[in-house]
């Protein structure tokens, strides 16, 4: 009976569906936090929480929770209306559900909304609020460099020292700042300050030039171009009520798995490098490129740019190309798996991987971890399996699961996924369905909302899109897996040796751009 009552307070959606914005159940702002608490108790996962400015100067909060067992996403909202007693406020959700911590900081930073009782309210990306109102941590000063004089959490004591790293790192990687509190080698606490990569991507998804918007979706996180483009296209196609042919879906899935292969193989090579196992680093570093080159064959770009567009794909894979790709994959399969067998056979590699940067299943659940990192901690979640869409509805990739939550587990999950993705691709390339690859989208349904979920190689990406009353795209909210997982890295480092940081960091390999947007 209780289920009945709860479900009336949520609207249930699936991938590819769109609903009227007005049909989303509205919860009183004072009860919103408790409402999510009840939802959490029945085992749903916080997929997205964001705010949207309303014309009267208020903010509507939207909560998207995933019911992974049923393949559904449930949605509710809450209106914060301006009163004579600013600022806008509501009881914090992160106070009882840590998975909400970054989302609530985002809302506070974008709109100056105060989540009352948030355990650790601080900037997320360092930018001004949309109306210039002060965020809860005090006025924003554009002229101060970030992280500037931000008061990092500090551990006191004579023998405690602090290590500051970034934003410009030693390697050729993205910028971010890491602040370690250490006692000797031991990391007592790691605080991660990001925002250097903030480009203002979300408003550009509404650009008058549709190609520009699609390319911005592809460049939210450049190594997950296909994954983000897929979530973006799924949301827009749902709003247009468009049906994409199975052939186009198959080509999208091929590109998605090639992207996963390139990144997983590259990550495994980089992990070898971080433990000074150079044969693995050198072989896998090169093999990563072979998968990028397969994507290049399909769409003319190693990162899959310009392949996915709302309405389908811009490049077909004719039979001769499919045969060529299949042949090259068949050649790569023993080569890659041979190197991985060699790598996982080395006691020097395993000794460094095992027990490093452990994240328990309980911690992973609490902070809402996603992707290979979550599966390495024993959390059974994979969008391809839980919220299947396109060809994943017909051909299933088994979920790769490990339980130890250490660097070894995060590497082993990738190893398993490499194996399975190659098998999946060989099958799909041998048996590609017929159909038109692209159909331009018709008008979008007005006053509606839809979402797209995809399992990027790094974890779940989600795009939520809203239309206005003139059937125009009016608002798009993007989530990269990284916004969940950066906190996981910080937790995994607790009690670890600081010299293990590069290894642990690589085992998560999170996106700075995808976090900063």
């Amino acid at each position, binding site marked *: 009976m209780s289920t009945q009552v709860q479900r009336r307070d949520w609207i249930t959606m699936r991938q590819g569906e769109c609903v009227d914005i007005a049909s989303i159940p509205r919860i009183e702002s004072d009860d919103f936090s408790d409402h999510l608490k009840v939802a959490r108790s029945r085992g749903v996962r916080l997929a997205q929480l964001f705010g949207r400015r309303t014309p009267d100067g208020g903010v509507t909060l939207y909560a998207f929770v995933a019911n992974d067992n049923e393949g559904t996403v449930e949605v509710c909202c809450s209106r914060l209306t301006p009163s004579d007693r600013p600022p806008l406020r509501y009881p914090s959700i992160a106070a009882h559900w840590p998975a909400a911590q970054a989302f609530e900081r985002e809302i506070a930073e974008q709109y100056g909304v105060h989540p009352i009782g948030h355990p650790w309210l601080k900037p997320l990306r*360092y*930018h001004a609020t949309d109306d210039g109102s002060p965020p809860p941590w005090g006025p924003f000063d*554009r002229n101060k*460099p*970030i992280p500037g004089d931000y008061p990092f959490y500090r551990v006191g004591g004579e023998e405690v020292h602090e290590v500051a790293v970034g*934003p*410009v790192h*030693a*390697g*050729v*990687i*993205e*910028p971010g700042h890491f602040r370690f509190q250490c006692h000797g080698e031991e990391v007592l606490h790691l605080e991660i300050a990001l*925002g*250097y*990569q*903030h*480009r*203002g*991507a979300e*408003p*550009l998804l509404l*650009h008058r*030039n549709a*190609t*520009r918007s699609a*390319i*911005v979706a592809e*460049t*939210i*996180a*450049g*190594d997950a*171009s296909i994954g983000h483009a897929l979530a973006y296209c799924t949301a827009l196609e749902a709003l247009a009520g468009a049906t994409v042919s199975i052939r186009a879906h198959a080509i999208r899935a091929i590109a998605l798995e090639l992207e996963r292969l390139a990144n997983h193989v*590259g990550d495994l090579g980089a992990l070898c490098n971080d433990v000074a196992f150079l*044969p693995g680093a*050198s*072989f896998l*570093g*090169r093999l*990563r*490129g072979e998968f990028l*080159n397969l994507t*290049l*064959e*399909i*769409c*003319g*770009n*190693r*990162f899959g*740019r*310009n392949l996915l567009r709302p309405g389908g794909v*811009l490049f077909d894979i004719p039979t001769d190309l499919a045969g060529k790709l299949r042949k090259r994959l068949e050649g790569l399969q023993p*080569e890659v798996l041979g*190197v991985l067998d*060699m790598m996982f056979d080395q006691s020097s590699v395993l000794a460094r991987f095992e027990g490093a940067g452990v994240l328990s299943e309980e911690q992973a659940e609490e902070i809402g971890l996603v992707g290979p990192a979550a599966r390495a901690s024993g959390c059974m979640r994979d969008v391809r399996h839980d919220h299947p869409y396109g060809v994943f509805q017909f051909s299933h990739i088994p979920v790769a699961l490990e339980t130890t939550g250490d660097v070894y587990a995060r590497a082993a999950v990738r190893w398993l996924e490499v194996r399975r993705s190659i098998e999946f691709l060989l099958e799909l390339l041998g048996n590609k369905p017929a159909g038109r690859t692209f159909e331009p989208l018709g008008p979008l349904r007005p006053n509606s909302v839809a979402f797209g979920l995809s399992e990027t190689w790094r974890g779940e990406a989600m795009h939520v899109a809203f239309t206005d009353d003139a059937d125009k795209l009016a608002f798009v909210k993007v989530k990269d897996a990284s916004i969940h997982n950066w906190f996981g890295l910080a937790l995994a480092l607790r009690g670890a040796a600081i010299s293990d940081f590069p290894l642990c960091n690589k085992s998560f390999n999170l996106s*700075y*751009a995808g976090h*900063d947007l």
Partner: protein
Amino acid sequence: MLRILKTRLAQGHRTTRFPLELPVLPERYRGRPKIDGSKCPEGCKVCEDACPTEAISTSGGLSLDLGKCLFCTACVDSCPEGAIKYTTDYRLATSQREDLVLTDGDLKLAGRMRDNLFHILGRALRLREVCAGSCNACDLDTNVLNTVGWDLSRFGIQFVASPRHADGLLVTGPIPRNMHHALMETYEAVPKPKIVIALGACAISGGPFADSPEVNNGVDATLPVDLYIPGCPPHPLTILDGLLRFIGKMPRAALGP
């Protein structure tokens, strides 16, 4: 140990022969566009309207700014006359910003760095890479040059950890306001004389993020640039080609026009 040796033998020698042998890229690869303004009907500007970054201009003859171009297919797909086509020519780097504006003629590719610089930096180039708002694709395909497939260090080019050990910066991304300060500090830390390379559409013009209030539309706005390598992202070959031209190590046969 034996297993490693066995795998090593199976892997073989994998370093590209470039630039002694020139590679052939797949037919779908989008390299340097070729434009033919004589095919344009009077007053037609469909490609200009289709272009996501206003890289194309039709006033006063057809021209395409490779510094803004994202190498998508919007112009090609929109043009009924076939006036714009992609070729598989990967050579795109130039020394001057204005050289990136493509018209009917040939592209003026990058030359060797200035003589006074070449005297000091020509034998070995140490670069500090600064990612400033890039989506990571430019950085990844720069990093690829360090793999055994390319072996960048055989040309005397190396990426270093500290700007104090560097001869210059290689910058990617549209320079977010939040990264501007760190970029300037890194530049200051590089000993003189120093060079700057702008890599990718974002670093040259802002790319897909051009005119966002959160970014600076590329490096040009704040630092003097010595080499432009366009693309979204540029292919590793395009990057290597640009770097070799810049340090004067490109054999004559591979130089082209």
